[in-house]
């Protein structure tokens, strides 16, 4: 295992064994076979550093914070030694015309080969005037940069699905990267912010295999988004036993019971928080006693109250299935009955107030 990367790491005091260990863990998190760790290390060490252009649009820089300030700076920071980050407004020393020149030089020199990372949504309202860089709209910049890109990585829920800027009433007309670019491979790494290891994992996959990882129907890498938070949650046995915390400070909450009734969106959220955790493996939202907000799913901000339980069917749906086997009429009747129950439930529903939460 030799190459420019290893030498560069050695200069920073990162040993070969540290790198091998990192690759073994990364391969494990990506659900690759154990032998892949060594193969990954060898390929990454020898890889030519691909040019990466990172464009920030309508965003809060939280995604950049997540990746650059992850708890173990040497580990996640290492990935930045494996790429040639030619343009990143927040991190680069250059500003103004020099920065724009660097962007265009990188785009020209690596045309058709560079990776384009985008964080933030793209506003279309007022001809894109809501977010401009150097007097040009985000839309214009994205279209230009996407043309010469080998692939695009949409980092964060805003770039992947529109995120908070797109939340109702969407004053700026925000859209996602995939709403605009249709002719390039796009990997979505949603999350508000995304888990750092997911991002480095996608880059490591690209460096190792020269291709993008397997994606699900929402454009997310299956290795990290294949299962829901609920599937991998350590509180799952309590859900199965029907033990729920009813308020944030009752007996159930203190015993670490399931947060479903407090509005946890874990059952419908695909992300790696439950396994990768946050802050260097210290904890993650559910372990800290708060339900999942579902931040890696499209339109999570408008998906209903964060503190309201996900709806559960009043009667098992099997009755409807059985009815439809008997006949369409019976099925329709069951459907009608269910709708009536749903309306009644909606009328009886009492909104949760701040006072309720403080009870």
């Amino acid at each position, binding site marked *: *295992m*030799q190459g420019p990367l*290893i030498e560069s790491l050695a200069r920073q005091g*990162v*040993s*070969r*064994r*540290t790198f*091998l*260990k*990192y690759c*073994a*863990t990364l391969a*494990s*998190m990506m*659900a690759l*076979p*154990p*032998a892949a760790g*060594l193969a990954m290390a060898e390929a990454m060490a020898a890889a030519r550093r691909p040019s990466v252009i990172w464009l920030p649009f309508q965003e809060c820089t939280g995604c950049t914070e997540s990746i650059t300030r992850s*708890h*173990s700076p*040497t*580990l996640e920071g290492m990935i930045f030694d494996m790429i040639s980050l030619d343009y990143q407004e927040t991190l680069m020393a250059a500003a103004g015309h020099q920065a724009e020149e660097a962007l265009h030089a990188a785009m020209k020199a690596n045309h058709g080969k560079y990776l384009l990372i985008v964080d933030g949504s793209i506003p279309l309202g007022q001809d894109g005037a809501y977010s401009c860089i150097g007097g040009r709209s985000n839309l214009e910049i994205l279209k230009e940069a996407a043309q010469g890109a080998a692939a695009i990585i949409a980092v964060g829920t805003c770039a992947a699905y529109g995120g908070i800027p797109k939340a109702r009433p969407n004053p700026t007309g925000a859209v996602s990267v995939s709403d605009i670019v249709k002719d390039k491979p796009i990997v979505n790494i949603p999350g508000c912010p995304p888990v750092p290891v997911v991002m480095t994992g996608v880059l490591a996959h690209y460096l190792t295999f020269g291709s993008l990882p397997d994606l699900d129907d929402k454009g997310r890498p299956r290795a990290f988004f294949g299962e829901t938070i609920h599937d*991998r*949650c*350590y*509180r*799952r*046995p*309590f859900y*199965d036993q029907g033990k729920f915390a009813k308020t944030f400070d009752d007996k159930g909450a*203190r*015993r*670490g019971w399931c947060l479903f009734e407090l509005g946890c969106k874990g059952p419908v959220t695909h992300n790696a928080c439950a396994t990768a*955790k946050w802050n*260097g*493996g*210290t904890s993650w939202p559910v*372990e800290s*006693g708060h339900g999942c907000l579902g931040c890696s799913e499209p339109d999570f901000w408008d998906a209903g109250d964060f503190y309201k339980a996900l709806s559960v069917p009043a009667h098992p749906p099997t009755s409807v299935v059985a009815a439809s086997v008997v006949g369409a009429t019976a099925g329709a009747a069951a459907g009608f009955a269910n709708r009536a129950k749903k309306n009644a439930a909606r009328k009886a529903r009492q909104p949760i107030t701040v006072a309720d939460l403080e009870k």
Partner: protein
Amino acid sequence: MTLDVIPIHVVPRHTGAALPGEPGLSGNAPPLLRELAEQVRHLLETGEPSAIDLSALPLTPADLDWLREKLGSGEIAVTLQAGGESTLDETACAGVWWVTHRNEQGAVASQFIEVAFVPELVKAHPADVAIGRERLEFMVSDL
């Protein structure tokens, strides 16, 4: 204040399918012994190492304890300080190593059972040995 003050009880994920009389065991650990036997046979015949990624399998802490106890401990225990502590312990079955990688905060980052004469991570790389030689030559020239 330490974290222990916060009364969160971490419970294993798979408690449902416990073996009768043995709480916390999922029944997923015993088949791994067969897989290890096959991997050791492969090592003896071809010299090729292999590994089982424990974090990728549905194993409870009790399963891991059971497995660790069954495999026992051998003569060698390697501690590696590289981006956090790693331990590579030979089990009572020579050639079977229990490998735990921890991060700088001390949390377990990944865990494997490796089947090899010597785990790859323990060997010194020729390039690193060359650096060591330079260092020695420098010391000798300084005498």
